[in-house]
Structures are given as C-alpha cells and as structure tokens.
C-alpha cells in the first residue's frame, strides 16, 4: 500500500525539480545546483528556525543535552494522593516490557515511581537510565509572557524608538548621500577630487574605533539621551555616497544637458531626473541603512541613557547581566526583534531583489 502511494509523490517531486523553462531535460549541473541550494537552505535557515523554536521551550527543556529541535513538554498525570500532577515515564523493566510509571521524585541516578493505574501497589525505585520521559510537542509561551510582563508597555516604546531611528536616519541618509553623490558624479568643479577623497577616506574608519570621540561630540551637541544623538552621527555614510556616485556615473550627461536647456534648476535636475533614475542604487543604500540602524548597538548603548529612549537592541542586551545570560527571554526577544524585519523582507523581497537586479551596479 504505502509503496504505491509513495511512487506518485516521488515522481511528482522529480518532476517539480526537473521542470525547467526552455529546456525539457535537466542535466547534471541542475542537480548540482539543487543539491547546493538545499544544503544552503539547511545551513542558512536551520539555525534561525532553531532559535525561533527554542524560544518556545521551557527553561528546563532549553538546557538539556542532547538539545531537542522541537519544544517538548513532559506528559503529566493526576495520581490519587498527590496534590501536583506527576510526570509520566516509560520504564523498561527487567523482563523486557515497558511500563508507564509516574515519577514522584528523583534522587540522583534513581527515581521513586508509582503506577498511576494502581497507586495502591506502592512506590517502586527505578534506575533513571531505564526511564524515558513521555513527552509531546508543546509550545511554551512563558518566555514571551515573562518578557511582556517585564518590559510591559515599554516594549512598544522600544519598537517606536527603533522605528523612528531607522526611518529618519535612512531618509536623511538617502537624501544627503544622493545629493553629495550627484555633486561628485555630475559636476566638474575645483575641489571635486578633494571632497571625494575626504569622504572616501572615512570609508575605512571602523565606528567602534571612534566610539569615544563620537560620544564626546554628541555630548557637546547636548544630544545625550536623545534619539537624534544616534541618528546624526550615522547619516553621512561614505559607503552610500560611494555606491550612489558609482551608479550616477552611468547616467548619461546628455539628459542633464537637455534639462538645463529647458531651464530646469539644478535641484529639479537632481530631484526629477537623477534621483528617479538612481532608484535601484537608492534601494541598496536604503536597505544597507535600515539594517545597520535597526541593529545598531554600541553607539545607542552610550548615547541613549534613559529607558524612554531605548531601542529594541538595547532592551535585548538587558538579558545579559554580570553573571549570566537569560537565554529564555533572550530567545523570545530575538524572535520578536527579528520578526518585523523578516516580514518586511518577505513582503518586499521581490521589490528589493528586482530593484537591485536592475542596478547592475557599475
């Protein structure tokens, strides 16, 4: 029976995999491609999936070895004479059969058990090695509940702050960088090279290395504890200017000349002609900026000193203290912070990908 059922499924998968546009038969390179992509799927996605699933585990389930992939809960049973429900175990007896027993308490390698069907038979001592807990898959929401109760209504505040920083910084970055890129790509003027070099020089400065001086400047501007204090230092991304300039070089100068003939102002040329044509490169810069701002950690850590201005990433860090990491809540928080981006990406990925695709960044 089962073989018969399996065959059509098998051939369907085969058909699915080998069906190709243009050609009818798949050659070995297609198989290689699929093999690679499926290995890639496992390597790229399994860790993420595992984090998400682990966020639904109980603290005890979380630290066990070997770790389980799915969240499990131990089956329990009500036994007469005990106030609390007892966990159920499958115990292999010496005669080679398995019995279902409820565990009363465990002491080291031995456990006291009782038969839930016949509690009057009394307690039995069982070696732990012979007992296997009876478990079923269960999603435990406690980590999320605890997270919500500790951060409370603040959680929305963090989301708001993160969103505000991300959106505002990205908008400013896109406009400011593209203006600079426009000037550097489409004008010949004295100091052109100097300005380009000045911006490109900063390309290599790791932000971590200038953390303290940057903080000093933010403090002098009076922006400590202010969302603008983490927005302004990050908007002049040299990477953005560099990418946009490279792209704008490919826009034909004739277009601009023609517009000047029509008495368009320089701003109009930039805003109405160059910017729309650079949309794909702008998309790349925007994604770059969104991802880095959303995930920013060190600068917000020093600059944002009050809870009202905390970002999600800072809240995430609260689950590590001097002596321990609270994995349960950390996992829940991780899932929660990554979710918005994941959804945004799932909805936008066609646009993003085709946007970048048509840039062919040159």
């Amino acid at each position, binding site marked *: 029976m089962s073989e018969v059922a399996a065959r059509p499924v098998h051939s369907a998968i085969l058909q699915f995999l080998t069906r190709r546009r243009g050609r009818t038969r798949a050659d070995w390179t297609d198989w290689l491609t699929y093999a690679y992509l499926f290995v890639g799927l496992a390597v790229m996605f399994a860790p993420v999936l595992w984090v998400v699933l682990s966020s639904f585990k109980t603290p005890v389930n979380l630290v066990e*070895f070997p770790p389980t992939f799915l969240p499990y809960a131990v089956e329990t049973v009500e036994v007469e004479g005990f106030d609390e429900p007892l966990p159920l175990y499958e115990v292999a007896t010496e005669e080679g059969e398995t019995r279902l027993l409820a565990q009363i308490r465990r002491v080291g390698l031995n456990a006291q058990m009782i038969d839930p069907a016949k509690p009057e038979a009394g307690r039995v001592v069982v070696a732990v090695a012979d007992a296997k807990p009876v478990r079923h898959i269960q999603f435990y929401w406690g980590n999320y509940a605890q997270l919500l109760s500790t951060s409370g209504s603040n959680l929305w505040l963090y989301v708001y702050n993160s969103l505000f920083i991300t959106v505002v910084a990205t908008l400013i970055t896109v406009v400011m960088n593209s203006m600079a890129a426009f000037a550097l790509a489409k004008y010949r*003027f004295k100091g052109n090279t100097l300005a380009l070099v*000045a*911006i*490109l020089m900063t390309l290599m400065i790791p932000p971590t290395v200038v*953390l303290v001086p940057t903080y*000093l400047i933010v403090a002098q501007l009076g922006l400590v504890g202010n969302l603008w204090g983490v927005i302004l230092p990050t908007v002049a991304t040299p*990477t953005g200017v560099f990418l946009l300039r490279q792209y704008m070089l490919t826009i034909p100068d004739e277009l601009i000349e023609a517009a000047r003939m029509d008495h368009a102002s320089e701003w109009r040329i930039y805003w109405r002609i160059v910017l729309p044509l650079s949309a794909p490169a702008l998309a790349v810069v925007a994604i770059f900026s969104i991802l880095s701002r959303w995930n920013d950690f060190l600068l917000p850590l020093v600059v944002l000193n009050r809870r009202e201005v905390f970002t999600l990433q800072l809240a995430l860090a609260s689950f590590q203290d001097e002596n321990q990491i609270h994995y349960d809540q950390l996992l829940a928080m991780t899932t929660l912070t990554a979710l918005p981006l994941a959804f945004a990406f799932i909805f936008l990925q066609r646009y993003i990908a085709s946007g970048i695709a048509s840039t*062919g960044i040159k």
Partner: protein
Amino acid sequence: MRATAALSGAIAALAALPARAVEPVMHGAQKALGIKQMPWVFLIPNLLAVLLFSLMPVFINLFYSVTGSDRLYPVDRPYIGGANYETLFDCGNYLDPSTCSRDLFWRALGNTLVFVPVQVAAMIGIALFTAICLNRDIRGRGFFRSIFFFPVMLSPVVVALTWQWILQRNGALNGLLTSIGLNRVNWLVFPDSAFFWSVFVTVWAHMGFFTIILLAGLQSIPRDVYEAAKMDAASPWRVFTRITLPMLKPTLLVVFILCVIRSVQTFDELYVLTGGGPGSATILIVQYIYEVGFAIQPRNFGLAAAASLLLGAVLMIFTLIQLRLARGRNL
C-alpha cells in the same frame, strides 16, 4: 520593471516631505550663488556631517593618543608625547609578538591580516557561487533568495549568540553529531577550529547581501552574449571565465571594496562568539581597541587611540592600493 517603479515611488513619496522643505532653499541658493557653486551646495550637508562625525573623531583620537589619564575631555588630559606609541612598540624581539609588552595588539593585528584575506576570499567565492546558482532557471528562486538573505537581517549579537549556542559543548551541532553516533567536538576550544568558525559565522551572516548584489550584476549581463557563446559551443568553464567574469568585474569591484571594509571592521560577532579566544587566537584589531579604550576599566583612551591610528595607517596603505586598482575602472 513595475516593481522598480513601485519601489522608487515609495522612496520618492517618503523623501518628498523633507524635499519640499529643501526645494525653495536650493532654488534660492542657485539664484544667489550661480550654477558654478551648486555642487558645493549639494555637497555641504554631507560634508558637514562627515567633518563633524567622521573626521573630527579621528582628530580627537590623534589628540587622545598623545595625552594621558582616563578623562574624556581634551582639556583635562595632560600631554605625554609619544609614550603610548612607545608602549605599543615595546618589544623584546620584533619578530616574536609574545615578547612585546602589548603582545595582544600585535597578535590582533596579525590575526586581522590573516582573517581579512581569508574571509573576503571565502565570502566572495561563496557569494558568487550562490549567485550563479540563483541565476539559473530554477524553481523557487525567490524563496532561495530570501533564505540566503535572511541572516543579513539578524543583529550581530543575535548571530553570535545563536552560533555560540550551536557550537558549545552541549550545543546543537554536537547533539546532531552524537545522534548519528559521532563523538562530540569542542569547536571553540581549539585555535584552528575557532578561527574556522569565526570565518564561517561572519560569512554566514553577511553573505546574503553580497550574493544579491552579485546576482544583480549577473542579471545585467545581456542574454545574447550567452546565446552567441552557445552557438560557438563554448565549454561552460570558458563561458564563465571569458564572459561572466569580465562582464561582472565592475560589480565584483564594488563587492570587493565593501567586503574588505566590512571584514576589517568585524567586531561584534566574534566578540560575543569567542571573545577573541582561545587565548588570543581570534582576537581582531577592532576588538583590541574596543577593550582597551572602552570595555576595561580604567579605560585607556590614549592607548586605544594610538592603536587605532596605527590601524588607520595600515588601512590607508590598503585604500591607496585599492584606489590605484580601481583607477582603471573609471573611479
């Protein structure tokens, strides 16, 4: 095409608000200054921000590096000359980092110089291969594209904690190994395997971004070029080396530059994953500077600044080489 239009429409709509406010200012500027000065008007906001938040910190660092004490404000710091640089160069034997007083600085610099080429090569190689796979006429292309891009969206701390959790003695990888009857391996305890995983995890986390850019580059190669090659019955390898690679070169250059920058700046992931260990096998230069100048009390801004300027000198040389390489490419 419609997708692009939709996206640019969305961006334009969002950016329209500040733009409307700016427009009259820009028109006024053009009237007052003339067209000749307009590039500067376009440049000024970005230049100001660069000056204030990128170049100024470097100058403050320069000042920090020749002054002492753990005070933050330059006025509070006494001048100490080149003492910090002397400390960094205080070595018994310049060929052996363990004889240096600041052996960790030299180890970190050395590790970085090994890490960057290895990681960049692995990153670009894997990203290119993935992009080529995704560029084929396969089913579920969008799905696979999303999968490979997904880790890019995770924050570095999350990436590191996830992998730390996978790689630790009682982690998922060892759980997998024991379930198929193999022995556990303590992945992060041995210098070589820790180094391997450092490269692996950083490639895992950032590869998607470069894959997508490379995919875009591949898709911009006109189809008819390939059709012509097919007519000539050229071998796939020949097609790849004679058509794909040359036509992809501009994209590869951008990817290479971005990748090197990112690689040199690698910090958060490894700081959480290995802390630079075992011993100092995976400590990179940015971590060293962060620890000296920020994480360890009392903070030694001066020494960190001196180290960062030395790093800057090394990077400057690399940038110059890059610019020279790029000159042929209309940069």
